[in-house]
């Protein structure tokens, strides 16, 4: 018993929190990467997450392409779609107030979600986890469904991989430099417009990756990204978008906080992240890892 709660229930909720935290981390990471360079808050991030799950579902349905290939293909397809959108439309908005980027991507999200809702209805479609991740493992102190363990591990790896890409590679140094002074980086001979396209595609691809991971956990539904993205916005406000690591850490932290709230005060579990956001705004308006107020 922990604080009068059975250990099993406690750890179970902690695991759910960790799973949710994985998705928060992956999504807020993508938002932060896009915002850093493009100065656009990608409202369509939730829709791109949903697209990832749907692409996986459709690949299986129509081409008998399974989970593992989908885990690679769906992010590529959604990333490519993102690249097209950035090139043809989003790139026209860079010289304007960033609010226009938010409004544009909001419209994009509505269009994508509306289309899928029209085609596939609002209800969810099941998507099975790969067979060797089915079942679970008894850890002695708790029962761990294998697929959920896999989600935690893989999303952690994806987060770290993205962090390494940005902090430790040549491409990452272009991204960081262009975040600070895009004009000078371009004057040095780096194709910054292409870099922007790549960055948006990367962010969209990450969202789609999270979507494929989520497909077997939740159901594949056109609305799966909508409410999630609003929570992720709160995560981003709490963490501040100045730091990649900050986005990741805040995502996991808030997921766990949410899981624990489910144990102790379930009625508030829907809103606990918003409450934390409000508290952070009072104490540290720039966010936990924010650099600018």
């Amino acid at each position: 018993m922990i604080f009068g709660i059975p250990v099993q229930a406690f750890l179970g909720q902690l695991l759910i929190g960790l799973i949710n935290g994985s998705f928060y981390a992956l999504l807020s990471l993508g938002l932060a990467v896009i915002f850093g360079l493009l100065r656009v808050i990608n409202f369509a991030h939730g829709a791109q997450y949903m697209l990832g799950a749907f692409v996986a579902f459709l690949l299986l349905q129509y081409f008998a392409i399974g989970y593992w290939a989908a885990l690679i293909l769906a992010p590529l397809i959604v990333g490519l779609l993102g690249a097209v959108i950035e090139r043809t439309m989003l790139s026209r908005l860079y010289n304007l107030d960033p609010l226009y980027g938010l409004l544009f991507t909001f419209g994009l999200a509505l269009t994508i979600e509306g289309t899928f809702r029209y085609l596939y209805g609002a209800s969810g479609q099941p998507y099975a986890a790969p067979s060797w991740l089915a079942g679970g493992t008894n850890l002695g102190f708790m029962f761990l469904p294998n697929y959920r363990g896999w989600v935690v591990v893989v999303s952690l790896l994806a987060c770290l991989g993205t962090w390494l890409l940005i902090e430790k590679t040549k491409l990452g140094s272009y991204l960081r430099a262009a975040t600070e002074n895009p004009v000078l980086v371009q004057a040095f001979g780096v194709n910054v417009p292409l870099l922007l396209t790549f960055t948006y595609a990367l962010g969209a691809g990450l969202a789609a990756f999270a979507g494929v991971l989520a497909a077997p956990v939740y159901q594949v539904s056109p609305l799966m990204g909508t409410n999630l993205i609003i929570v992720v916005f709160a995560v981003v406000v709490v963490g501040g978008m100045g730091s990649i690591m900050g986005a990741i850490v805040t995502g996991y932290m808030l997921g766990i906080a949410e899981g624990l709230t489910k144990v102790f005060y379930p009625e508030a579990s829907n809103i606990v992240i918003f409450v934390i956001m409000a508290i952070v705004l009072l104490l540290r308006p720039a966010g936990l890892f924010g650099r600018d107020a």
Partner: protein
Amino acid sequence: MVELSEKMATNVQPERTASMIQVGLLVVAVGCLAAAPLFLYPIFLMKLLCFALFACAFNLLLGYTGLLSFGHATFFGGAAYFTAHAVKEWGVTPEIGILIGVAGAALLGLVVGFFAIRRQGIYFAMITLALGQMFYFFCLQAAFTHGEDGIQSVPRGHLFGLIDLNRPTSMYYFVLVAFLIGMAIIWRFINSPFGMILKSIRENEQRAISLGYSVRNYKLGAFVMSAALTGLAGGLKALVFQFATLTDVGWQMSGEVILMTLLGGIGTMIGPIVGAGLVVTLQNYLATSDFPVTIVTGIVFMACVLLFRRGIVGEFYTSRLGKKLGF
């Protein structure tokens, strides 16, 4: 966001003929509204007026203060719940019910604004969205809102205990008068010294701070004002449709009012009214087909941002005819 529209709002030429034309247009417009129930369904007209007021109240914040709130459904839907609860459970007269809705919305505005004005721009939008979602979940669970069912069969009652609002025409003129009062308040507010200071904050916040204005208080004031007027629209809507549900507090509703304002013209007095008219008409039209409204809404959103950021009225003002008429 609104440098362009700002120009339109202040670019009022002092020419007599032009302003005569404008006054003339205003009189004609009010006349049309007064005669409208003869030609169109009162319920449709009332819906239109509620949303037009909602959009104008929202525009007070976006167009004249430069703050994009993504959570205005909180005040719209919140006021609808308050008004509905007051007239149904407490049995107050409709005008008192509306005032309770307005007061409740103002209070919500004070709380949300208090948190949101701590950040600017994009963050402000995200915070208002998140707090709006929080309020949505609150409404989903609170007892007095009746969760998924909402508050149903709200009585319209007797205005001042005298006029029976169950007659569609009476109800329509009540809504029209309330709408005109709301518009007059907005117009007065924008052209007051307070409104001028808001404009200067929007144009250059640092300069306003260095001039010694307490920028936060002004922003909060504008936020509460906008929330209260939104509450007026929400309360009216609850009486018109005789119910208050979760739809009115959802983020989709917050998005809808942004679309109305953007489509009509941010920072113009009548843009949001035009935008609301178009969106409401479009929704009514699409409701009879099975084509989903969200797709159309999304596409219109993208088209507005990409192609005509000034909105319909804004584009008209900058057009040749608009300039001739002195806008």
